[in-house]
C-alpha cells in the first residue's frame, strides 16, 4: 500500500488537459483551411507547412534557453495553435521568410519574452500579424482573387519568393469597398462585392470558420460570450450607418461575412490568455472588438481590422476584468474595481 499524501480534489476530469484543448482549436480550423485552399490554392497549405515547424523550433529553442523541459512544454500544443492562426491570417502568396519572421515575432517576442504560455498580455498570432503588416505592407496585402487559385507549382514558387506574385493577386472585397466607398454605381458594378449573399468567395471562408467556431462551442472549448458579443457589436453598429447611407457604409451582413470576421470572432478574440476572463468582462471585451473592427474598417487606414482591434482590447482586458468581477455567493454586491 503506497500512502501518498496529496490535497483534494483527488479526481480530475479525464482526458482534460491543455494540449487537448489546443488540439481541438486546430481541428476546428480544418473547414476554413479546406475552403481557403479551394479558393486561393496551395498557398494556404504551404503557409501552414512552414509556420508549424518554425513555431515548434522557435518555441523549443527559447524553452531550452530558459531551462524548461522542452518535450513536456511542447505538448501543450500552444505553439501549433499560434502557428496555424498566423498562417491562416497572412496571404497565401507569402514568401517563406515572411512567415518565419512573423512566427519569430509571435512566439519569441510576443509569447516567450513575456514569460511563456499564460503570461502573454497580447495575442501572439496577432502580434506577429501586425509586425508583418507594418513592416511589409506590400507582401501582406497581396491576396489572390477568389476562384483564381494558382497551380501548386506557382504557389510553390511564391513561397520560394521567385514568382511574379502580382500576376495572381487582386483586391479583396474589403479593399474594393474601401476604394469605392461613396460611389454607388461602382459598388453596384464590382463583382467581388456580390457573392451569393455577401462578398464573393470570402463569404464561404467565413461560413467555414463559423462552422469551426460552432464546433468549438459545442465541445465547450470556448464560451459563447466573446464571439457572440463581437459579431453582435459589429452588426449593431454597422446597421444604422448602412441604413443611413448604403453607398458609403457596407451592410451588416457584408461585414459579418468579409475578411477575418468569423475567424477573428471564434479563433482570435477567444484566445483565453489575452482576453478578458469574467463573464461580463467577455461580453464587453467582445462587443468592443466588434465596434473597433467596424470603425477601423470604415474609417481607418487598413482594410481589415481584426488584428488591431484585438490587440487594442488585449490592452484593456485586465482593466475590464477588474471592473467586472462576478457577485460572489453571500455578498450583497459585486466587488467591482473596489480599491484598496
Amino acid at each position: 500500500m503506497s500512502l501518498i499524501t496529496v490535497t483534494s480534489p483527488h479526481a480530475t476530469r479525464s482526458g482534460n488537459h491543455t494540449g487537448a484543448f489546443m488540439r481541438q482549436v486546430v481541428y476546428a480550423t480544418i473547414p476554413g483551411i479546406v475552403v481557403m485552399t479551394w479558393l486561393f490554392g496551395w498557398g494556404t497549405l504551404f503557409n501552414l507547412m512552414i509556420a508549424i515547424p518554425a513555431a515548434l523550433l522557435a518555441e523549443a529553442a527559447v524553452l531550452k534557453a530558459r531551462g524548461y523541459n522542452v518535450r513536456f512544454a511542447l505538448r501543450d500544443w500552444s505553439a501549433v495553435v499560434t502557428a496555424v492562426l498566423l498562417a491562416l491570417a497572412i496571404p497565401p502568396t507569402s514568401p517563406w521568410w515572411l512567415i518565419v519572421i512573423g512566427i519569430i515575432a509571435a512566439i519569441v517576442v510576443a509569447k516567450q519574452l513575456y514569460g511563456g504560455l499564460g503570461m502573454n498580455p497580447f495575442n501572439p498570432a496577432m502580434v506577429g500579424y501586425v509586425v508583418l503588416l507594418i513592416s511589409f505592407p506590400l507582401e501582406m496585402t497581396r491576396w489572390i482573387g477568389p476562384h483564381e487559385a494558382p497551380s501548386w507549382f506557382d504557389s510553390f514558387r511564391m513561397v520560394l519568393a521567385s514568382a511574379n506574385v502580382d500576376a495572381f493577386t487582386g483586391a479583396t472585397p474589403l479593399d474594393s469597398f474601401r476604394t469605392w466607398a461613396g460611389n454607388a454605381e461602382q459598388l453596384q458594378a464590382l463583382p467581388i462585392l456580390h457573392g451569393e449573399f455577401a462578398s464573393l468567395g470570402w463569404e464561404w471562408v467565413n461560413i467555414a470558420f463559423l462552422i469551426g467556431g460552432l464546433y468549438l462551442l459545442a465541445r465547450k472549448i470556448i464560451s459563447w460570450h466573446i464571439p457572440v458579443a463581437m459579431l453582435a457589436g459589429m452588426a449593431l453598429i454597422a446597421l444604422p450607418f448602412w441604413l443611413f447611407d448604403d453607398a458609403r457604409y457596407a451592410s451588416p451582413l457584408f461585414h459579418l461575412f468579409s475578411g477575418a470576421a468569423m475567424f477573428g470572432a471564434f479563433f482570435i478574440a477567444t484566445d483565453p490568455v489575452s482576453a478578458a476572463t469574467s463573464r461580463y468582462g467577455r461580453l464587453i471585451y467582445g462587443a468592443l472588438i466588434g465596434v473597433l473592427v467596424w470603425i477601423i474598417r470604415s474609417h481607418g487606414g487598413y482594410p481589415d481590422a481584426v488584428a488591431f482591434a484585438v490587440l487594442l482590447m488585449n490592452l484593456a482586458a485586465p482593466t475590464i476584468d477588474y471592473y467586472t468581477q462576478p457577485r460572489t455567493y453571500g455578498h450583497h454586491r459585486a466587488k467591482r474595481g473596489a480599491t484598496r
Partner: protein
Amino acid sequence: MNASIGKPRLLFDFHGGIHPPQNKTLSNQRPIRPAPLPAQLILPLNMHLGAPAKPVVQVGDEVLKGQKIAEAQGAVSLPVHAPTSGKVVAIGPRPIQHPSGLDAPCIVIEPDGREQWCELHPLPDWRTCCPPSALIPRLREAGVAGMGGAGFPSAVKLSPRAEHPIEQLVINAVECEPYITADDMLMRERADQIIAGVEILRHILNPKEVIVGIEDNKPQAIEAMRRAATGSGIEIAVVPTKYPSGGEKQLIYMLTGKEVPSGGIPAQVGVVCHNTGTALAIHRAIVFGEPLISRVTTLTGKALREPGNMEVLLGTPVSALLDAAGADMNRIGRLVMGGPMMGFTLHSSAIPVVKTTNCILAATAEELPPPATEQPCIRCGSCADVCPADLLPQQLFWYSKNQDLERAQQYNLMDCIECGACAYVCPSHIPLVQYYRFAKGEVRKEMAEQQKADRARQRFEARQDRLAKEQAEKEARRKARLEGSKPAAASGVDVAALKAASLEASAAYKAAVKALKAAEAEGSDQVAALASDVEQLKAKADAAKAAVRDAGNAPAAPVVDVAALKAASLEASAAYKAAVKALKEAEAAGQDVTALRTEADALKAKADAAKAAVRDAGPATAKAAPVQPATAEQPAAEKADDGAERAQKMKALKTAFNMSHKHFKEATAALEHAEREGADNLEELRKQVERFKLKADKAKAALGLLVDQAKADMRASGSDLKSLKIEAAQTEAAARQKARELEAARVKGDDERINVLSRELDALQREAQVAAGALKAATDEQGLADA
C-alpha cells in the same frame, strides 16, 4: 401541507457545479453490515470542531459501553464516550484524522467483548416531558456532532440567537460527493429513525418549514424517506445531481433562495442545516439516551473486494475496516478519508474512524492516478464557469501564487469553500485548492499577527508615554531646583501659555471623543483603538490642567514653561498625527470622512500654534533653558522605534524558526513512524527531514545575527544592559547619598538646606526609578531575543 403529495418545490440553481463520475453503485449494492470489533479502539479527544475534550478516566480503568471517558471543555466542545466496554490501556498521542498528519491525544480502549452498556437515560416522551430547550444539553452530553462536514457540535447550532428566528430547518441528505453512499443506505434502511430525529429538531427549533434535500440519484432513499415522512409535514425535496449541491451554502440556496452572508452562518438568514446522520444520532440520543458511539461509514474503492457500508464503532482503526472489506493492500494507490473531491489522504492506516468519517476510499492507482504535472494557467475560464461560489479561481490562483494576499482577498479568497470543482476541470492540472488553502492560511496568520502587533504597539506607546512624562517631570524639577533661588520672571505669560496648552489638550480630547462616537455609530472596527486614544488624550488634558493650576499657585521660572510648552506642542502634534491616522483608516474603510478631516485640520492648526509658541518662548529663555531635553528626546524616540522594528523582526524570525523546527520534528516523527511500519517512501521522508532541519538552522542563524546586531547597537549607543545597570546603580547610590545628607541636615536643623535637599532627593529617586524601568525594559527585550 403534505409534501409527499404536494407539487415539487421551486428550486434555485446555483452557479457552476460539475458532474464527476458517481461511482456510487460500487458501495450501495449491499445492506449496512456491522464492522468487526477491533483489538483496540482509538478515540481522539478532538473528533469534533472546537476545543478538545478532557479525559476523565485513567489508564487501567474499566469502562462500560456508552460511559463518558472525556468531558467537554468550553462552549464549543463535546464529550467522548466509550464505544464499547473494556479497559483504558493508554492515553497519549496517536495519528489521527487531521489533514496535517499530526499526532494528537487519544484514549485507547481494549474491548472486553462483553458490550456491556452503562446506565442510559431514555426520554421517549420528549414531546411532553420538558421544554424543548431542555433537550439541547442532552444532545451535547451525548456528544452529537455534525456527521457530514466539519463535525460542529450540533447543540450549538440548535440554540440560535433570538434576533434570528428560524424559518427553515434544512436536512442535508444530498450526499453529492462521488463514491459515498452512507447517507443513501441510512435513508433506505432507517428512514423512520431519521424522520423521528428530524421531528426532535423541529420540536426544538420550531421552524416554519422543514425540508429534506436529496439528490435525484437516490430514488430508493427518496422513496423510503417519502414514506416515512407521510403526514408529518416534512417536505422531501429532490434536487438535481450536481456537485457540490450538498455544500451547506449551496443547498440552502437551492431550497430557499437565501444566501448565507459572506463570513456568516445560516442562522443569520433564518436557516439551520443538519445532516441526515446527525438527525439519526439525535433520535438515538434523546429517545434511547445513547451517546454517539458509532456511525455508518462507506468503504469503497476498487482496491476493495467487498465494498459497502458498515456500522462502525468510533475509534475503529481504518486498517481493521480495510481487512473487513477485503482490501487488496498492494492495489491501494491512495487512501482517502472522505470523498474524492474534498477528502484528505491518510498517511497511516492506523488512523481511527471519527464522528465525521463518512467514507474510506481505498482507490487503485488507475482510479485516482497520481496528479499530473502542473502546466501554466491559460486563463481558459473553465474554473470560473464551475465555481459554485461565483469566484474567479484563475485570478485567485494568480494572486495566491504571487502571495499578493491583498488582491486575493479583494477577489474574495475567503469565500472559497474548497470544493475543488475548479481544480477538477482545470485543463492545466493546477492544484488550485492547494494554493487557496495556503493563501487562506497566510491571510489568517497575517490577521493574527496584525492583532498581536497592534496590541504590542499599544503597550509600547503607553510605556513610551509614561517614560516621556516622567522624563519631563524630572527635567522640570531639576530646573526648578536650579532656578529655585532666583526670582520668577514673567510668570504671567507662561501661565497663559499653559492655559492655552491645556485648552488645546482638552479640545483634542473632545475631538477624539467625537471621533470615537462616530466610529461606534458606524460600527467601525477601530473603536477599541480610538477608545484608548481618547483615554490617553484625557490623561494629557488632565495633566495640562494640573500644570495650569500648579503654575497659577506657584509662578514658576520660564524654563519650566518652555518645557511645558514643548510638551504641549508634542502632544498637539501627536493628537494631529493620531487624527490623520484615524482619517486614513476611515478612508480606507470607506467611511464618511469629512468630519474627521475638519478635525484633523483643526488639530493641525493647533499643533502649529503650539509649535510657534515654543519657538517664540524659546529665544526669550534660550540662555536659561538648555535645549538638550528636546533634542535628547528625539533620537531616543527614534531609537525606540528602531528597536521596536527589530523586536518585530526578531519575533517574525522566531516564529519562522519555531515553525521550521516544528516541521522538522513532525517530519522526524513521520520518519520514525514510517520506519516502524516499513513504508517504502523512507528516502523521501528522510530528505524532507533534512530540508526542514536546514530551514530551521537557517532561521536560527538569521535570528542569531539579528540578536548580535541588536546587542552591538545597544552597546554602541551606550544603552546595553551593562551601562543601563551601572546607570541604575549609580542613580540609586546618589539617591541614597542624598538621603544621608538630608538626614544630616535634619539633625543640624538647617531649614533652607533641608528644603533644597529634599527636593533634590525627590528628583534623584525619580531618576533612579526611570533608570530601573529602562533597565527592566531592556532586559525584557533582551530576554525576548535570547529566549
